[in-house]
């Protein structure tokens, strides 16, 4: 068999997205919501829900995005399935590969952590599991064990397809992180709080610590944590009204930027989006950029630029409420502790 690599690559990309569809009905409602709430485009856009699935237009909220959407997902029938050893092994292989870990470092699935089921409406298998490391990893002083601290992890597998990692629940599995029908048949408990925020000594703030990059920051306790990205590089927190959010994240300094270069790049990025930069600051390896958007939002970015890593704290809140946010923004900036100068 002779296969042209270019054609194979193009064909693979096309076929792998054949079952991805947009939900125009959901979009229409969302766009009108943007129109009503255009003062806060950022918040409104978060409800632009995308439907995807082999059944065509599916109004999907649960399991994707931040759960603030309005679109209602129809009830889905689901079946609880017996977890076979083959399934466990597949989950371990998939998870290890996604983590960049050798399979040999994973001892197995954590006892009592595995859920396995089938969602009829999408003909998709779902599973939830945590994983345990082998003894050598447990005693390792390296970073191998860190990857095992998160979870439970959520997986899905289309009929005839292979498992893929959907998300890391971030330490607490919230029922909203799997389709409701499955959460029901699995009888998933609803834990108090979904996220990894732990309370600090201050009653008003909680400290968020990122295990992967090692940075931390205090954010208002009342803010709701968004979904943990699967590569676990940071987290977004949103106030109850949905008008303000703060995002803290780390990243490798892949472009080898200096603080001055990073400051210039961030200024350019905001300017290219039509935003007005009203403040910029650099002292040592710390930079800050602030300004306003055309939609009446204040942005504030603070970064610690190291040779191998960049740690960022980004705020967005209404201009009209600028004064009331000064305290919390300053507090988070003051408590923002970067991680080490190393790649994660």
């Amino acid at each position, binding site marked *: *068999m*002779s*296969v*042209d*690599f*270019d054609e*194979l*690559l*193009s*064909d*693979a*990309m*096309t*076929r*792998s*997205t054949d079952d*991805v*569809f*947009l939900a*125009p009905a959901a*979009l*229409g409602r969302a*766009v*009108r919501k943007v*129109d009503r709430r*255009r003062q806060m*485009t*950022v918040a409104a*856009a*978060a409800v*632009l829900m*995308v439907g*995807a699935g082999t059944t065509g237009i599916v109004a999907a909220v649960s399991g*994707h*995005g931040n759960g603030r959407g309005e679109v209602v997902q129809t009830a889905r029938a689901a079946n609880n399935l017996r977890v076979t050893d083959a399934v466990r092994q*597949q989950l371990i*292989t*998939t998870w290890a*590969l*996604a983590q960049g870990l050798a399979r040999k470092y994973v001892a197995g699935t954590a006892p009592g952590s595995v859920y396995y089921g089938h969602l009829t409406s999408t003909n998709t298998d779902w599973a939830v599991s945590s994983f345990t490391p082998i003894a050598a990893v447990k005693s390792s002083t390296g970073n191998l064990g860190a990857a095992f601290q998160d979870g439970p992890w959520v997986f899905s597998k289309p009929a005839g*397809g*292979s*498992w*893929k*990692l*959907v*998300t890391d629940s971030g330490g607490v599995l919230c029922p909203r992180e799997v389709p409701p029908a499955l959460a029901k048949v699995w009888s998933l408990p609803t834990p108090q709080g979904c996220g990894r925020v732990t309370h600090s000594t201050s009653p008003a703030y909680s400290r968020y610590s990122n295990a992967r990059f090692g940075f931390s920051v205090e954010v208002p306790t009342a803010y709701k944590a968004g979904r943990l*990205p*699967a*590569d676990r*590089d940071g987290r977004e927190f949103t106030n109850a009204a949905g008008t303000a959010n703060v*995002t803290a*994240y780390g*990243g490798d300094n*892949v472009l080898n930027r200096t603080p001055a270069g990073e400051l210039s790049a961030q200024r350019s990025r905001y300017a290219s*989006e*039509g935003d007005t930069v009203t403040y910029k600051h650099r002292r040592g390896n710390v930079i800050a950029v602030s300004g306003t958007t055309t*939609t009446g939002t204040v942005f504030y970015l603070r970064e610690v630029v190291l040779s191998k890593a960049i740690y*960022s704290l*980004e705020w967005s809140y209404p201009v009209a409420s600028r004064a009331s946010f000064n305290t919390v923004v300053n507090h988070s900036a003051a408590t923002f502790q970067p991680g080490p100068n190393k790649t994660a």
Partner: protein
Amino acid sequence: MGLDRYDRLEEFVAARGTRLLRFAVLLTGTREAGEDLFQHGLERLVRHWSRIDGDPEAYFRQILSRLAVDRWRSRARRGEQVGDVPTQSVSAGTDTLDLRDALMGALATLPPRQRAVVVLRHWEQLSESETAAVLGCSVGTVKSTSSRGLARLRSIVEPQALVTTNFNERSSRHER
């Protein structure tokens, strides 16, 4: 700001949204991350909609591409999942279906910029200069990034694929 303006936005996204969502999925490596990227891109599109002078699809594609290589909005999604990871190794008895799975798994492991270049060149079928314009970089950067990305894909897939498959490489397509 009337609703007509958003009606046109609706029309545009209804007509081209699925294609662009698929593009976002390829840029990020997973459906969920692609949906998140699409939403972020749509947020930008809405913000700038009234000022877009020209082809909105090209503009949206540019937004998605740049967001995909942006540190947070895509790095958070870059490898956030490893696509449709094949659960079986591609070994003896491999066929085109296995290769597709292996390729998509390999594509998901590429750094964001390499993946964006590969997707723009091989799925959107853009030229090197068009790809450079979308990503805001030089043609030289596109050449080198594409070369590294494709080499990495081959290095991951080819040793196994060679068991039964011969790639008929057409390197000239990457050099235009």
